[in-house]
């Protein structure tokens, strides 16, 4: 079985979001910048006036590898891409890419993506699929 993430108090809102079909990230109310991963204060300006917001779910493909030695639970999918995507809001996160063959020809960097969610145990994990077109 694929690894199932386990929330901590400060990450719970993120995982509550994925369960609701929303990609939620944090935004600083002082400097107005978004950030990820979940933390109690803004890593840019240090303010603790921060809020959770719903990200658009739109992203572009920043970089990836295609793993030929699968992790436990990923045996049927190898070789599979482990990707880092850049959200429209400017933050980056690691993910997998679905709805597209995971081959170099099909995965040009900067291709446009949108978030989808995969159930994993009791949790929902954000994955990304092509949105059509390249930036």
């Amino acid at each position: 079985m694929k690894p199932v993430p386990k929330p901590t108090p400060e990450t719970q809102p993120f995982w509550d979001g994925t369960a609701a079909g929303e990609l939620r990230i944090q935004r600083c109310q002082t400097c107005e910048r978004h950030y990820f991963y979940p933390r109690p204060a803004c890593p840019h300006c240090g303010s603790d006036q921060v809020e959770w917001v719903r990200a658009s779910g739109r992203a572009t493909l920043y970089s990836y590898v295609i793993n030929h030695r699968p992790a436990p639970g990923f045996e049927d999918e190898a070789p599979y891409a482990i990707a880092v995507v850049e959200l429209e809001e400017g933050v980056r996160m690691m993910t997998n890419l679905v709805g597209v063959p995971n081959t170099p020809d099909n995965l040009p960097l900067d291709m446009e993506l949108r978030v989808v969610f995969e159930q994993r145990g009791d949790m929902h994990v954000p994955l990304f699929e092509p949105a059509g077109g390249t930036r």
Partner: protein
Amino acid sequence: MTIVIAGAAETDEVGRLPTHSTLQLHLEAARNALADAGMTKHDIDGIATVGTPGPIQIAHALGITPAWLDGTGVGGSSFLFHVRHAAAAIRAGMCRTVLITHGESGRSRIGAGRFGMAPDSLLGQFELPYGVVGPPTSFTITALRYMKETGLTHEQLAEVAVAQRRWAHMNPRAMYRDLITVDDVLASRMVAYPFHLLECCLVTDGGGALIVTTEELSRRSPVYLLGSGEAAESPMISQMEDFTTSKAFRLSGEAAFAEAKIGHEDVDHLMVYDAFAHVPIYGLEDLGFVGRGEAGAFIAEGHTSPGGRLPLNTNGGGLSYTHTGMYGMFAIQESVRQLRGEAAAQVPGVEVSVVLGNGGMFASAATLVLTNRLP
């Protein structure tokens, strides 16, 4: 006060050592370094090593009662941090002579800790769910972005492994010594595209140790510490600011060069931690030896190979010599050998050597500037 490396040695062998526990590797390296320095355990009043087995166990096992301990564990760069921290502690009068040890049963896993991250850790939540299998699938993830931004080719990436094998070919202790070609690299098994097996480091058993003290207390011709720097970036590679350059490499390098008061033209020999083939490319650029996007061609043109103007990773590196998991100790050891004129693939006339150590996946870095003559 002039800080020196007064003793340096590796374990009797590196490679496959199923008869050695992790602790035994530390202790063998420590004994060898003490012998190299002409010292005994009675000369040591400071101990530095990474978390497992840790400075308490190493000191106790050797029968040393330390007045100063450092357990900084920030990945494979930790031993460079230890040298820098030891220098500061000695200058501050906290101790006089520090023993730094590394031992890792990376291949045989004898007396070694377990791998694994809790599912509620940062990586457990935000990286492991995506099928990451250790460094080959995460440290490598920056490379395609670097290739797109700079034009680095797959062949140039392969040239890193080819160049380092030329050095390993001259080193009897290297695990892989046969010369290889770009075609050999590109034909080797794909591990994590764009990385083939020969572009990934070895996994071995071994250890090394250093003795850091003052010039006055050194009992042999010393290697001087001219400058050092340390830095950190992100605990997760996905959060690295820019996938085409390492902030920690840049900052630690700038600090070390500034303290040493040297320029790039002064450097005769360079060690850059090479867990994967792209890391020396980042190191050459982030230390400022070449401009952005130029390192691939620089290596492919032979400038880092035997006879080149900037000999790089002259033991064969993590790709061909040895890589226990925390390779930084071995990078320092090779710089010391080159400065003493004792290396297997000795470069003529080395007076200034720079070591860049990486920790984690571009997570931490430290740089040392070493010399065999004071300016």
